[in-house]
């Protein structure tokens, strides 16, 4: 609470500062990290995405400064003076070629590098031992389904999704009976987790900024290519980022990244607690 108060005071101070055109730089030093720029990355591979972001940031920043300096210089230097006339010019094909070729080369290079990240980091096969968690989005929340001791989720099909079977579990599959549901996305640190993403009504978003991950959950299909390795213990928040109705802004779910031991403890508790009728557990169970 105290922290909130002091933050509020600082915000008011900052706002006041803006109006008298000072105070912004003074305030900057007091902020905790991640408040001015990206939230600290908490997943493996996330740093690579950040590196690329920084690269584009510096590249575009440099080009922007350069072009603006030239631009402003021209504006000042060639302002109208009495008795001076503009110099006629028709253009210069060589210059055109240069400033077409350079951006083209940069863009294609950027594209090539980003493909490497996209295909080899984000969309490559996850490492062996990756845990599977089914995530089902609904108006307005998320529920999670974990595999039982076999380590495998039972068969499911989006066509089977119904109000009393929100994950579309195939109940004829014996493995399904071991699955259990949770209202919290509990994850062991440094271990891969693959998401099987479904929605039971409209399109939702599966967005975790700290993990640099976002994928829409689309009704009618199971999206199975999202995986990540959280590498920092902590509490995070899963947020919906695709407009889904009046509760959109409040559609969230807690994420707990914990040590392997803590996770095992939680997992055992969950299994013991929901053994008899796991598949019938209500989706909203917290």
């Amino acid at each position, binding site marked *: 609470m105290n922290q909130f108060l002091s933050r*509020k005071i600082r915000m008011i101070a900052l706002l006041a500062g803006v109006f008298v055109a000072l105070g912004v730089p003074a305030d900057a030093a007091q902020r905790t990290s991640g408040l001015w720029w990206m*939230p600290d990355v908490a997943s493996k591979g996330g740093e*690579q995405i950040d590196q*690329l972001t920084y690269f584009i940031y510096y590249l575009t920043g440099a080009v922007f400064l350069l072009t603006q300096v030239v631009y402003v210089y021209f504006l000042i230097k060639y302002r109208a003076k009495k008795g001076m006339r*503009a110099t006629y010019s028709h*253009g210069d094909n060589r210059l055109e070629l240069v400033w077409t070729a350079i951006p083209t080369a940069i863009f294609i290079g950027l594209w090539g590098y980003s493909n490497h990240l996209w295909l080899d980091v984000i969309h490559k096969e996850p490492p062996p031992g990756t845990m599977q968690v089914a995530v089902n989005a609904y108006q307005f929340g998320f529920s999670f389904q974990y595999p039982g001791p076999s380590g495998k989720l039972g068969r499911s099909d989006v066509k089977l999704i119904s109000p009393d079977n929100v994950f579309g579990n195939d109940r004829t599959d014996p493995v399904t009976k071991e699955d259990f549901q949770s209202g919290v996305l509990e994850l062991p640190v440094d271990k891969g987790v693959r998401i099987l993403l479904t929605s039971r009504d409209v399109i939702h978003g599966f967005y975790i900024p*700290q993990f640099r991950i976002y994928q829409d959950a689309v009704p*009618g299909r199971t999206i199975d290519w999202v995986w990540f390795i959280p590498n920092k213990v902590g509490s995070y928040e899963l947020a919906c*980022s695709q*407009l889904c109705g009046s509760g959109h802004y409040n559609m969230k779910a807690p994420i707990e990244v914990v040590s392997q031991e803590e996770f095992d403890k939680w997992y055992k508790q969950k299994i013991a607690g929901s053994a008899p009728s796991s598949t019938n557990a209500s989706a909203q169970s917290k």
Partner: protein
Amino acid sequence: MPPVLQIIDLKDSQATRSYLTKQTLRSWLLTTDHKRVGLLYLYTIIVFFAVAASAAAVMRLNLLTPRGDLVQAETYNKLFTMHGVLMVWFFLIPSIPSVLGNFLLPLMLGARDLAFPKLNLLSWYIFVFGGGIALYALLIGGVDTGWTFYTPYSSTYSNSHVALMAAGVFVAGFSSILTGLNFIVTTHKLRAPGLTWFRLRLFVWSLYATSVILVLATPVLAMTLTLMALERIWKVGVFDPALGGDPLLFQHLFWFYSHPAVYIMILPGMGVVSELIAAFSRKRVFGYTFVAFSSLAIALLGFLVWGHHMFVSSQSVFAGVIFSFLSFLVAIPSAIKVFNWTATLYRGSISLDTPMLYAIGFIGLFTIGGMTGLFLATLAVDVHVHDTYFVIAHFHYIMVGGMVMAFMGGLHFWWPKISGRMYPELLGKMTAIVTFLGFNLTFFPQFILGYLGMPRRYHAYPEQFQVYNVLSTAGASILGLGYVLPLCYLIWSCCYGKPAGNNPWGAKGFEWETTSPPPSENFEKPPVQTEEAYAYPVPSSEPITE
């Protein structure tokens, strides 16, 4: 009467009779004069702009506090939908083409009117009818789907007036198509003698490129919204998986229109800026043909990049790769334009009048908007900022920092021609600067908000985002001032402004050769183009070469 006397007689009658002379309601509502139709559009879009901007003002006020204390979540959703729908379809798309384009295209071509003057008036009536439906949908309760109408939320789940709003947009689309068609035919058929394609003004080139997109893309929107409404009303399964449809199909179809629509909104702005830069640096636009063809390149490539709105939609991973490539490509013609505008200034004779200030602002802000587009075209980076405030900031830098700045610049530049009177220059300059500052304060913090991870369309938000939201709201109030002031002093200038004369800027072009305001038939005698476009005075040692 001998012919010479006849001409003199005609001259006398025209000197006193401009297109504004007859001021009856009937003469306005039944006019086929392209200049009057342009003004009818101007009045109409000012109304839509005011409504849509008020919605944004309420949103910004609501976001002053993290809990969103001012309005309820559902109201908030309706506000941003209203803001988006009205701004996109009822302000930005008709802004430069239908107002300035209508007014100027025949003048720039040396024609008496558009090719189909009655069709032009009809397209305004269609636009007003469509806008009326949209406003009615707002009055009876509004729509909460966002301007993107994503299915199945829009087609099945939303309890608001989606079908009615879609009908409004559908109807207004015909106005776009007819205007586009009219402009294309006019540019082909009504050019003055000597006015070859490569002597055309760059504004005409950009209108031509825009019209091509209007004609080709708008039918796809009409079709998509029809399918969505059919699904909503009669449960025809197209997009809702529960009815056997596919929600992604809607996104593909919607963005196949709506990405080109982004270029409908920016290309005419680029055309205006080319005019302003040339006129106020007294120079021919550097690399004329490159600037002209880059407009066509943007129009063409704009049709091939719709998938970059869908990188995280679960479209194929490889489709993402291709759309990323094409999105980088579409940035090249824009970069070429910016370089050429900068080079035009080189050894020019630059005067910083109000329209030029807007043009300068345009170039800086458009560059930021374009460059932040590179973050979004880069697949892995887009994932982090997709559907956050980063995207909001990005497209507002293009749409408001770009298009609206260009529109204001163009309006000030041609205002003497439209009204026959000058606006107060000092006030104009101050307003341009206020708009620029207010704009940046409004939208720059939103880039940071996006990076911090604040999703768009949130009625309330975590406490740590408040400072940027407060800054943004403060900026919006300054920006608002920048829009209210011109409304006041431009109206004032109609009565009290000093008479402008034919060519107050000393600019080149047919429209500056006729009187201000022009006579109904535009020119006393049909003009003939004898030189290239922007043939500003050249040192006698340098010959003009074509």
